[in-house]
């Protein structure tokens, strides 16, 4: 006897046909996809040495040679923005992987085991959640340098919220027939986790992880703005920081990198919203009916 397919996949198939009703998801996916593509293309899109200086070209406005202009050292801003995408999304990827692994495992196991384990995990989650990570990031950069240590720190502090969500979802799944059946058949926690829990929590986790991504981009840009970025890779926040004395004379130095940050964060936020709407089609349906008019009430 096969277990009934999880409710979610049925709902998803139905919703996708009406994708146009989810413009947030579309826009979010498009913007994020754009940034990801740029990041993956990296050198192919913007070849050359990203830090090449040029006295003759410094502070040039956007032109055919330099699509986004140059900075105060004559470095091409388009190259900087493209490579910066690679850097930022690299950090996001690292953080998302660490947070996802820890969050899913901890959250699901905590729900499956229950009891004392669950209590302990909840306390750990709360402890990690209360610690101000921007402050820790400043500390970590001072001690261990910028770059990878910061990624690790952000990963180690981004998982609690995901763990909570996964735990909540797993709790509701735990009572489901197919899980009990699997348990009765002798499956261990890990097996249950991998084969039953994970596929079902993916949508919920995706909502949270997209949000994590957007927060990480802003955090990393903020650190770079304070001068705490890795000087050996291009970074949007550092570009915006460099632009400060030139705001009145070279607007392109601030607008393009700042805009890149805004577009990326916006894309991830919309993606998160869109996925949440997808996961909760009942509310979207309510929304549509309500918008359509009062006809939902009495006729």
């Amino acid at each position: 006897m096969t277990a009934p397919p999880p409710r979610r996949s049925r709902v998803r198939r139905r919703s996708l046909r009406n994708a146009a009703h989810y413009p947030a998801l579309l826009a979010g996916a498009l913007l994020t996809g754009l940034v990801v593509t740029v990041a993956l293309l990296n050198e192919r899109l913007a070849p050359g040495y990203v830090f090449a200086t040029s006295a003759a070209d410094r502070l040039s406005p956007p032109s055919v040679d330099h699509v986004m202009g140059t900075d105060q050292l004559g470095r091409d801003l388009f190259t900087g923005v493209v490579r910066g995408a690679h850097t930022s999304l690299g950090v996001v990827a690292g953080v998302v992987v660490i947070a996802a692994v820890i969050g899913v495992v901890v959250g699901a196991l905590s729900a499956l085991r229950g009891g004392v384990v669950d209590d302990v995990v909840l306390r750990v989650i709360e402890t990690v959640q209360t610690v101000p990570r921007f402050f820790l990031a400043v500390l970590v950069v001072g001690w261990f340098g910028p770059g990878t240590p910061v990624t690790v720190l952000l990963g180690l502090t981004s998982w609690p919220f995901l763990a909570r969500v996964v735990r909540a979802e797993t709790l509701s799944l735990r009572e489901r027939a197919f899980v009990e059946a699997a348990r009765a058949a002798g499956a261990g926690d890990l097996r249950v986790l991998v084969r039953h829990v994970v596929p079902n929590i993916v949508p919920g986790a995706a909502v949270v992880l997209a949000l994590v991504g957007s927060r990480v981009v802003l955090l990393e840009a903020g650190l770079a703005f304070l001068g705490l970025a890795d000087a050996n890779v291009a970074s949007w926040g550092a570009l915006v920081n460099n632009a400060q004395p030139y705001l009145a004379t070279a607007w392109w130095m601030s607008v393009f990198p700042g805009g890149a940050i805004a577009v990326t964060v916006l894309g991830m936020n919309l993606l998160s919203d869109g996925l949440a709407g997808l996961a909760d089609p009942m509310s979207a349906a309510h929304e549509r009916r309500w918008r359509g008019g009062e006809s939902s009430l009495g006729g």
Partner: protein
Amino acid sequence: MIDRMGRLRRGTGQGGFTLIELLVVIVILGILAGVVVFSVSGVTDKGESAAFQTDARTLRTAQEAYFAKFGEYADVQTLADEGFLAGGTFTGNRTEKGNTIVLGTGPSGKPNSAYTITCGENGSPVPGGCGTAGTVARGGTLVVGETFASNATTNVASSTGGGTHAWWETMYNGLIELDEAGNPSPELAAVVPTVGNGGITNGGATYTLTLRQNVEWHDSTTASPHFFNAEDVKWTFEKVLLRLHARTRGMAATLGYDSANCRADNIVATNGAGSNGGTVVFNFNSPYIPFLKQLNVTEAAMNPANSVSGAFPVGTNGCPSQAQADAVKVGTGPFKFDSINSPSAGDGKVVRNPKYWKSGLPYLDAILMRPFTADAARYNALVNGDVDFVWDVPNPNVAALDANPAFGIAATQSLGGGPNSVDQVIFNLKASGSTVASVANGTAPDHPVLGNVNVRRAIFHAINRDDYLNIGRNGIGNVSRSPISSQVFGAATDIPLPAFSVSTANSLLDGAGWNGPRVTVGSTPNVRTALGHPTLADGTPLTIRFLQGSGIFTDRLAVIKANLAAVGIDMPITVNTTNANTQVFTNRDFDLYIINYANGYDPHVGVRRQYHSDQISTTGTPNNAAGYRNPAVDADFDQAVQTLDTTARAALYRDFQQRVVNDLPYAWMIETPNVRGFRATCTGFRVWTGLFAESASCAG
């Protein structure tokens, strides 16, 4: 929606967006960008800034040439008449902005751009002087935008930190003042000792200072007066200066100083009657020529004897600890300590010393110091009127500020912590991980990459120092032409330094065993690898780490990084602002470093400490950071400090410079003047010293 407990609450959707709404997002983003572009694009100062810098350099060169020939500075009209200046017009339209006078247009033709004279204390070079005598505005508070936050150190005798000196130097006095060119005049010493007046004897080995009388310390009261006296001088040298001041302790050896017990028996202090004034005799073991250049408030600020507090940790052996010495707040200066953290947290305040011994001074009632963590915020504060004076105008903003008639700027060769500074790239000559002791006694192994002088030479050739200056520091300064700053005695500017040449750099590296196939390392393409290198395996990439200890160097290092990449060197930059100076140098864990070394007013003061083998230090400012040991150079310095004859002395320093140009322990980049900015209604700043506001006044 997900609540804090992680429960998905059904029936509470986030609400979707319609397509129209998203289109509106895009439109608003576009409008925002347009508004930003429209509002922030002002006059492009690019053309003007280039013109300003060219004119400023032309003027400076002409002034220096005139000084070299005639021994004094001349005004613009004279320079033009004598043929030192060509081009430009002198319309005789004098406009005074702050303490500068603008005399027309420079060769670039831009008005207000740089034919300016700074009015100084030691006589203005402009006939008629600056401003009108006798109408100085009294009173008011000067608000200063500081570059560094304050810390526990309020004593400028125990520290050479630029921040400490900028904040607190106004509370102190030295023994002998120096003007911007280094010419001495009496301060707490009543007379400048010379051979002629018997102040200097024994061929320059004995100095007798007669002290000024009736100078009161800040804590002096009518009930119990506390006068400055000879005992104070001896105490300050013994307990503070000769132990803790990075430059002044350079005289410790010749003075026979016992640092373990902080005793200088060769200093003989005799108080005047009533413990007021007196004489102090300095008996050096051999002639010590630079002495008079090391007695101003930056090099030898005076503390009251036995004035250390109970700050922790306590000193040992009767010698105050660093913490105790740092906490001293009592001086004789024009301003005295008032408070910190008022009106805002982080601020500092000094108020007028009503009993200041220079009668009539100071004019201001108080100075309020406010720190800024960001350059841009500090500059905005000046332009917006939140502050009146900033120590350091960010290089990109200098031209715009100068063009603004409501503000004045003054460039000076001094940083807060010392004059005549030079950016120097430091090559770690010894292997990473070597102990300080092994470097000092010569047993440490050479650095595998930088130990080869041809590699160092290649790096020097690869760096375009004009770009370093123009791009990295916005043209403020001039490219070094000698290891000793051109502003200091003994600078030999005719010894050629390695010129910018990519081909020479490449061939040197090829010959040094770095001609292997190229690889990509990180973001850097085309990096050389070793082939037939004496110590490193074939295929090792040529990666040289640059340790950056301070954020001010960021743009300049970016230029070096690009220059080195062009010859196949990968130069990752690591930023270490915490403890870079102390802990990194105890195990020499760096390849390249950069320091802005203050040369002082005499090579013995600020230059010797970079090259003499007895300066390979464990603590404090990294003197001799390269780990350089050359007995011939040591001998040059040891001899020069005792040589009275100027020509012979210059020859010794010339020999030293020739040797270090051959050995290249450092790469001398640029000389770094700093630009102070202030609102034009304030005047009288002596911008080359921390005692900058002694005769300053603000109208309105």
